């Protein structure tokens, strides 16, 4: 009793001390309250990002925030929407040749750079030539086979891309994610492999960069020459906040206008001031099976594992509400135009799982499961998988660790350290890009699968120019990979963007994978 009183008393004193400390600074709080409210001024949209962009050089950037910044300052020829359809940006039209050996792009005519100079075919050719150089670090998509694509200026507003051999994936790969940079500014740059170019960026995007304070913020100002029309919000700030908790409070308080939140945070946000927009990033979160590991070499054993799982349960637990996820069944995300559900879905069937194990002559199966212990969704799913497999008599030991370290291990040739692993990928739109994961020689073949039949299908589909036939091939491929039981696609989890209600037109600005806003200029302040 006495101890309890003492404790309470110290808490009281402690709180009093705090209050005093807070008051003692009262002299300038009035002013600061004013100054902090000015951050939410009528001319500025503040978006919280979780770290510095790794690279702000449009030629080689490939990280989320680097691409976000690039997309604000520069524009590509064509934008790919979440559902795989394309929309012209700097391009007026894109015409693939019938033989599949070239693509002609006509450019919009009255586009100006943010410094007022006209935009022409020279800029496009200059940009692509820099990007196609292997040493600059982002050339892979501009090479077909072992040869680079060639770029020709036809006239001031027409560029022809000449492919060394027919490629169905090329049209998509050429047009997207290459942000055109002005030749007249960057002509003198010798090395484009750096992460930050020394020149002041001049672009055709909706905003111009004003200031970049590392670790703090990037500020932008509307580009009056923007070809999509001058943005209605004059200033844009990307504020760097590492801590997710702080971001949440800053959002609630109005210090920032928009940020990503987790499904579990949504209930805490006040609906009157904040609206959440869940959207798909076409990510596939999956359980991978290491086909090289001794216990899982028999396809029947792998199928037995998959039949014991319950996808619904895994997703309900990790993402709470149906509106925050979709369930994929093949290795392609559900929004992908080539995705099919006509594959073995492995609906939960414990009996079948046990039967398969018996057929394979396996009893008392013991597996380990690697997952990133700093990822809350994976942690929940890993423990559930352990329970679910237990029902089929499969014992799972959990091996939580650092995600990067786990995948570095899986990347080693012939690694058998982990039987099962949780991972995820965002590979883009053309299904050919997924070959990196599923081809025997693929650079991200963590499943360690050697399967000639699926390799063959990938090769055939990559060069098939007839859309319907190509689709047929990919259907076959998705079925084959599902039957092979090397990947159990669990979820296409959505990103949830929380935005202060004073910001309007969020849906018109287009929520797309990686860049968040397709065209940030469409946002308005109410």
């Amino acid at each position, binding site marked *: 009793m006495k101890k309890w009183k*003492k*404790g309470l*008393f*110290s808490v009281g*004193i*402690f709180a009093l001390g705090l209050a005093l*400390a*807070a008051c003692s*600074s009262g002299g*300038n*709080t009035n*002013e*600061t*309250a004013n*100054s*902090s409210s*000015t*951050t939410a001024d009528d001319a500025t949209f*503040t978006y919280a990002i979780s*770290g*510095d962009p*790794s*690279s702000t050089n449009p030629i080689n950037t*490939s990280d989320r925030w680097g691409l976000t910044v690039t997309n604000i300052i520069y524009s590509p020829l064509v934008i790919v929407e979440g559902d795989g359809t394309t929309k012209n940006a700097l391009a007026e039209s894109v015409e693939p040749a019938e033989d599949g050996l070239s693509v002609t792009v006509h450019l919009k005519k009255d586009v100006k750079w943010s410094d007022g100079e006209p935009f022409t075919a020279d800029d496009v050719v200059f940009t692509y030539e820099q990007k196609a150089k292997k*040493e600059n670090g982002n050339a*892979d*998509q501009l090479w077909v086979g072992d040869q680079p694509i060639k770029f020709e200026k036809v006239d001031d507003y027409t560029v022809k891309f000449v492919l060394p051999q027919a490629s169905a994936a090329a049209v998509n790969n050429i047009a997207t994610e290459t942000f055109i940079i002005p030749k007249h500014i960057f002509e003198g740059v010798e090395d484009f492999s*750096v*992460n*930050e170019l020394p020149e002041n960026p001049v672009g055709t995007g909706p905003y111009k960069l004003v*200031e970049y*304070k*590392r*670790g*703090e*913020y990037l*500020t932008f100002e509307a580009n009056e020459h923007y070809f999509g029309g001058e943005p209605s919000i004059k200033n844009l*700030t990307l*504020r*760097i906040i*590492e*801590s997710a*908790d*702080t971001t949440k*409070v*800053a959002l*609630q*308080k109005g*210090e920032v206008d928009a940020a990503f939140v987790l499904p579990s945070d949504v209930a805490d946000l006040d609906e009157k001031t904040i609206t959440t927009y869940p959207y798909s990033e076409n990510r596939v979160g999956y359980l991978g099976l290491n086909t090289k590991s001794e216990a899982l070499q028999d396809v029947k054993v792998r199928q037995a594992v998959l039949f014991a799982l319950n996808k619904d349960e895994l997703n309900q637990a990790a993402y709470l509400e149906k509106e925050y996820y979709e369930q994929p069944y093949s290795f392609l995300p559900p929004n992908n135009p080539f995705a099919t559900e006509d594959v073995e879905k492995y609906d939960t069937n414990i009996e079948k799982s046990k039967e398969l194990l018996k057929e394979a002559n396996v009893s008392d199966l013991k597996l380990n499961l690697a997952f990133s212990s700093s990822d809350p969704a994976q942690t929940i799913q890993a423990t559930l998988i352990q329970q679910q497999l237990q029902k089929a008599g499969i014992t799972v030991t959990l091996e939580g660790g650092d995600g*990067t*370290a786990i*995948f*570095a*291990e899986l*990347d080693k040739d012939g690694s058998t350290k982990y039987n099962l692993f949780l991972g995820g*990928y965002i590979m883009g739109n053309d299904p050919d890009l997924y070959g*990196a*994961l599923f081809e025997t020689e*693929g*650079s991200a073949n963590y499943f360690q699968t050697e399967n000639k039949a699926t390799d063959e299908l990938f090769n055939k589909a990559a060069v098939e120019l007839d859309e319907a036939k190509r689709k047929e091939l990919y259907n076959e491929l998705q079925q084959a990979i599902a039957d092979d039981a090397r990947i159990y696609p669990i979820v296409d989890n959505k990103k949830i963007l929380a935005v202060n209600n004073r910001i309007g037109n969020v849906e018109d600005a287009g929520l797309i994978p990686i860049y968040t806003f397709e065209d940030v200029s469409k946002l308005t302040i109410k």
Partner: protein
Amino acid sequence: MARYIAKRVLQAIPLLLVISFIVFSLIHLAPYDVIDSVTTPNMSPDRVEALREKYGLNEPFFVQYATWLTNIFKGDFGYSLVSQRSIAGELAVRIPNTMKLIIPAYLTALILAITLGLIAAANKGKFFDKLIDGIASLGIAIPTFWFAMILIYFLGYRLNLFPIIGMNTVGKAGDFNDFLAHFIMPYLTLTVAFFPELTRYIRSSALQQVAEDYVTVQRAFHATKWQIFRRHISRNVLIPVVTQLGLALPMLVTGAIITETIFGWPGVGPYLTSATRSLDYPVIMAIMLLSATLVILGNLLSDVLYSVVDPRIRKGGKE
């Protein structure tokens, strides 16, 4: 005196080398390297190999270590592998930001601790001692990140007194009032993080003094407790405080990692945490080495100061 200092400095050099070696080997032992963080699935193996060569990651261990160490002697901490920026340049911006936060917080904590510690010692076993002990226990038990979030929630959000992110409002760099508003919450967090242990330390040093013979003598001369504490104990307690000051040196770089990350303060904290996440090991190594060096220098400094304050130690050094 000079001989004593020289001897200590000479002793520190091999220690620093050993530490640099340990830091380098530990990072080298990690099951992955920075290449894993810059490669993407659609990068060809040739390109990955080229990157390895470019960063010297295919050289033998000792060659890599020697290159790294020689560069450090030239004041070159190398470049961040992720951002390509000079680490020394980046630290030159960030360390002052960290110091702006740490120094006031540490000094406040120290003053608070000296006052509370002496009061507690003077009232040993009585109410005030128990109270101060209670506060200190609570302070030690409270995790920094939790306390920071409580401040953010109440002072920043509910009462809306202070802005919660960064060191300045965008576009107001250099505005002192604006800085102060951003400064108060992280400052309070750190003060609360620093003072409890210092208080305990000072209380126990003061109690040691109380047990000394000279106090008994003073008591025999009917000196009041107030006089004894004011004239003698408070002065003698300053000697251990000097030790603490030296030991606090490494905090100038790494003392506020959690607090800075939570408040988005552009100091060393967020730099180190993001480097750790992206396996940017030259950055991690530079900060670890810097911090370890400061530990050694801090020890050295506190010993030297100690010998200045207490001549008996100096004499001990000569024998």
